[in-house]
């Protein structure tokens, strides 16, 4: 019985429970003075949920837990000396056993006997059946694998039966209590609430996942590179140590990258926020419905153009343009390089326009008309109304949009690579090239360097650091928003 069939059966039980509960509830005749607490649909939904939810949870838990249990059981049955052998790597050995288990299923009885007897090379035997083994394997593994197979089969069987029984029990439970006063709606809504809550924990889980997926490598990075070198170093040159410092580990100074990240994001925001905000204001306040309905989606295309296109645009068009422009202005020597903070910020800013404009437009439009009328009625101009009444009222939402924009600016890679380059300079001149943390993360991860070297591992340290920095910035932003929030009505 595959998990899919079990699921289907469970769903069918749920559907039946729904139908029965619905009919029963609809058939209830409340006494005088009493009302049906919940509508029939809710009773049905409750029965459905009772039938399906515990069953599925059970199945999922079982599926998650049983492999570990089975593995443990099999491991404990392995010969003593294997378990205690100094070089035995449990996960590796168990990997072998499970692979063999896979292969055993494809063997004929005769072959199985041979395998048990150890008279054939397991690797060759299994390779012919399409199962990969890392090494030749030991004879004792075959019985273990057979045991493993039996246990997993049993596990699948029991879990299927258990799940279906649970579904039936749940359905019965959901159906028995149906009465006029039963709070089916509350129950269903409580379950929905759990669902909503669970959805919001995904964010937390993602965060934990992100941190965990980078933590170990980060730790091993810091084992070879001192913290101070990383956090306070002002030179980023991972392959070379400073002349005279004697080391060969290279220099992993975070400062130039951090400065570049913030600088480029700042330039991008300086460009995107005014444009986006003014565009939003114009669309929400001045533009006719028609114009708005065209302009808004048109601007949104900007957010969907792949960043590599922006990068090429920066590289081939904007960068040279700025350089030539600055050369013309300064009469000869350009003060803006083709690859510069300015180029990257500008082009990234273009991409970010719709983030500000579309989201802000929605928020501004959502401010009740009465606010608007109240201000106009006092003789305020539209711009005054916008600036002094509507925008402050819409502030929390707009800050959310801006945060999103800033986040995007910090996380962007491709544009920076092509528009500002990969050289980690430390400068305050926006006409020069800088680079960002994200660029370096991508570079160090995808290069040809050794994957065990600090040069590659630094990517993880960078990732975690960036994570921490943006976290701090978000805490600050939350504080600011709380302080200035204006709730209308």
């Amino acid at each position: 019985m595959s998990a899919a069939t079990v699921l289907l059966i469970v769903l069918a039980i749920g559907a039946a429970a729904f139908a029965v509960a619905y009919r029963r509830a609809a058939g209830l005749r409340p006494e005088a003075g009493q009302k049906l607490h919940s509508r029939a649909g809710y009773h049905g939904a409750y029965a459905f949920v009772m039938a399906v939810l515990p069953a599925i949870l059970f199945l999922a838990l079982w599926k998650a837990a049983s492999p570990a249990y089975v593995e443990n059981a099999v491991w404990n049955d392995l010969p003593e000396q294997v378990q205690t052998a100094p070089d035995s790597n449990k996960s590796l050995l168990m990997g072998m056993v499970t692979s063999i288990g896979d292969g055993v299923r494809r063997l004929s009885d005769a072959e199985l006997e041979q395998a048990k007897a150890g008279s054939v090379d397991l690797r060759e035997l299994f390779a012919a059946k399409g199962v990969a083994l890392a090494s030749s394997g030991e004879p004792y593994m075959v019985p273990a694998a057979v045991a493993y197979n039996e246990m997993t089969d049993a596990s699948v069987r029991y879990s299927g039966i258990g799940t279906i029984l649970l579904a039936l029990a749940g359905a019965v439970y959901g159906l028995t209590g149906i009465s006029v006063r039963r709070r089916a709606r509350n129950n269903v809504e409580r379950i929905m609430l759990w669902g909503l809550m669970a959805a919001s924990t995904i964010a937390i889980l993602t965060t934990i996942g992100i941190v965990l997926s980078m933590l170990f490598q980060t730790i091993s990075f810091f084992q070879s590179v001192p913290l101070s070198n990383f956090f306070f170093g002002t030179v980023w040159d991972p392959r070379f140590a400073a002349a005279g410092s004697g080391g060969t580990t290279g220099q992993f100074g975070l400062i130039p990258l951090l400065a570049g990240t913030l600088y480029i994001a700042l330039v991008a925001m300086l460009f995107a926020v005014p444009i986006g905000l003014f565009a939003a204001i114009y669309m929400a306040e001045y533009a006719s419905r028609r114009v708005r309905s065209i302009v808004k989606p048109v601007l949104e295309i900007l957010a969907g153009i792949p960043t590599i296109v922006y990068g090429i645009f920066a590289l081939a068009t904007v960068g040279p343009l700025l350089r030539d422009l600055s050369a013309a202005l300064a009469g000869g020597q350009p003060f803006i390089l083709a690859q510069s903070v300015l180029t990257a910020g500008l082009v990234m800013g273009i991409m970010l326009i719709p983030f500000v404009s579309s989201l802000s437009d929605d928020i501004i439009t959502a401010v009740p008309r009465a606010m608007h009328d109240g201000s106009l009625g006092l003789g305020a101009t539209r711009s005054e109304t916008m600036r002094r009444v509507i925008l402050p009222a819409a502030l929390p939402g707009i800050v959310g949009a801006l945060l999103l924009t800033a986040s995007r600016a910090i996380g962007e890679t491709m544009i920076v690579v092509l528009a500002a380059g990969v050289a980690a300079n430390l400068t305050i001149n926006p006409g020069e090239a800088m680079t960002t943390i994200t660029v370096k993360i991508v570079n160090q991860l995808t290069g040809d360097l050794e994957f065990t070297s600090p040069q590659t591992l630094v990517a993880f340290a960078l990732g975690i650091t960036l994570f921490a920095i943006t976290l701090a910035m978000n805490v600050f932003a939350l504080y600011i928003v709380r302080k200035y929030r204006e709730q209308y009505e």
Partner: protein
Amino acid sequence: MNMLTDVAMEQKLAPTQDQHMIKIQGQEVCVHYGEKQALFSVNLDVRENQVTALIGPSGCGKSTFLRCLNRMNDTIDSARVSGTITLDGENIYDKAIDVVELRARVGMVFQKPNPFPKSIYENVAYGPRIHGLAKKKADLDEIVETSLKKAAIWNEVKDRLHEAGTGLSGGQQQRLCIARAIAVSPEVILMDEPCSALDPIATARVEELIDELRQNYTIVIVTHSMQQAARVSQRTAMFHLGYLVEEGDTDKMFTNPDDKRTQDYITGRFG
């Protein structure tokens, strides 16, 4: 038919009113909301330094007319206004007219109180500030205080000037909106049921205020209370189903109306 009545009435009443100049004159004002016509050729004058009350059953177009007077209808997409309305002889629907200035001159208190999501102080200070009526902080404080006092809410809010205006009770919000409107000292004040959420005492205060303001300002007030119309207004206009039924001296309207509908409405026999 209406028209005739109007003219007749006008002539009859004219002599008693020569001391008051016409401040606002509405001629043939029609308003459509999309397909639906809400006002039909209304001709109504508002005289300076008088209180004009608009009465009539709910949905008859009082607010609509009021909103025409400072062009607040402009903000409703579906609304279209025709006819002419003049303020001091100028057509306010003229291209050359500046709505902002118009609205600064013709202030408004809305039917549903709509305080800004700002502090009480900021709510009142908003108008004076945008119009640059106060040079110094102290002037502004002064304006805020007097306005709140005039609107009979000062005592209730003086300790919480910097709390949100949206956290006030319904009646307090309404008075806050009155304070906000008078803080910019407009020439004309349009009040859409300013006392609907007020208790008798506050109502009396606002009525006093209206009476006081009348010395220097022109006031148009929408009210459902006949008593209130009788108490505060000098002239009354009666609307019904989008038509101006009758208009005239309040005393006369309430004692001896020309139109049957007015009579019925006033005596509560309507419908």
